[in-house]
């Protein structure tokens, strides 16, 4: 079947099987590799992409369902190098292996677009569906907060923070 969607601003016309998953089309057909195949069943969030600005699981969405939609991955954020959120994450050394990073960044991007000054609770809730097995989340949350409240001093490093 024929579908068309926009990915990171570029329109695509594609012939897909109804059983093709969105993540496979994005990665293997279009070569956009930031969404990762993690658990493959919607649990881990590594496959997160933005569909019309909402973060969704591309491993649970058929490519056919993306027909006519506007998709974005983390590649769209860095046209001019890492954006403010990404730089804050780098400063905080918020990732180690990086497998979860694209999903976390997109989930946080959606949050900040909707709520530029989120509370810590809102930040935690927004990234709750993105599992990170390296860092314990604290540095990620601190980095999102740095961007959320740029006028404030960065939060002090936590004493005895576990890594």
């Amino acid at each position, binding site marked *: 079947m024929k579908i068309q969607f926009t990915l990171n601003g570029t329109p695509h016309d594609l012939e897909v099987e109804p*059983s093709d998953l969105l993540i496979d089309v994005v990665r293997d057909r279009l070569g956009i590799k930031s969404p990762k195949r993690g658990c493959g069943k919607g649990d881990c969030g590594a496959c997160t992409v933005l569909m019309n600005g909402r973060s969704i699981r591309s491993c649970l969405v058929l490519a056919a*369902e993306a027909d006519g939609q506007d998709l974005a991955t983390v590649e769209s954020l860095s046209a001019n190098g890492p954006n403010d959120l990404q730089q804050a994450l780098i400063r905080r050394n918020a990732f180690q292996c990086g497998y979860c990073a694209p999903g976390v960044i997109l989930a946080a991007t959606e949050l900040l677009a909707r709520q530029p000054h989120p509370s810590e609770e809102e930040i935690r*809730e927004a990234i*709750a*569906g993105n599992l990170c097995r390296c860092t314990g989340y604290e540095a990620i949350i601190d980095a999102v907060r740095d961007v959320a409240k740029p006028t404030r001093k960065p939060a002090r490093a936590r004493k005895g923070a576990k890594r």
Partner: protein
Amino acid sequence: MKPFDYAIAENRAGALAALQQGYRVLAGGVDLADLLKEGVEPHDRLVSIDALDDLRAIERTEDGGLRLGALATLAGIAAFPDLPRLFPALAEAASNTASPEVRARATLAGNLLQRPRCWYYRSADFPCLKKGGSQCYAWAGENAPHSIFPSGACRIVHPSSLAPVLVAAGAEIVTDGPDGERRYRAGEFFVNTDRDPINETVLPQNELVVRVDLDELPARSAYIELKERQVYDWPLASCAAAWDGSKWHIVLGHVAPLPWRAVAAEELLQGHADLDEALAERAAEAAVSDAQPMSQNAFRVRWARAAVRRALLKACGKEPV
């Protein structure tokens, strides 16, 4: 994934025609994609109903009720203006289910019709009762998350968080089909596994859920769910409590194959509008008095009791301790 025919319904008539031909509905796909990939439900024919925009609406009725479209997302329900004041139990259930990515796609009808999370059911390697096989593997296996109340031999728990709330509020599930619109009381829509080990609801294959009607919202309500992790986890016990102005409705979730009405607790509270700690505790005890836990899940009888007590007190505006 096994290949399948994929049809796109342009309108409701097209969707109903596809159902008559044996197509299975694809809406948000959150649960169905998983079942297809695992080979647990290898459907030959799917019909997308994404174009049925009229099923997305969430509306207040003139006389103070709510009409929730079948394709309203959990995120959409959670964001409905003033819902935490209008119907706190529904706001709580919709905003705490799974994660933001799931709530952005998951639909109301999909939440009610999602298949159980039982790990034996979810594995194509186990020909269990729910798949038409001859035994339930939970009895001799890992059964901590399974039913703690009297059920048939299949010991699933119903996975929906919205279902207990809608049953407690006396909602009606409206379908469309060959004989036109039908209304099912939410409390009669779900079935226990002694009546049907295969299907969790009475919904016929050729009917499409189109909306959920709440003619009146409960005067007071609360929903409590208890999980191992505070976010993005399946509850191990939950309770919806609703006061309709003359009677309490208490429905447990995630503890039985269907939203579990705590009839004994409802009767014990007859004539009591406002509850104190002691009365809430007595009702909670009554709610689990007929529990029949399995080898690994007796702890969830205590969890269920705590959920009932806390939901009742919260519905009365009291902070449970």
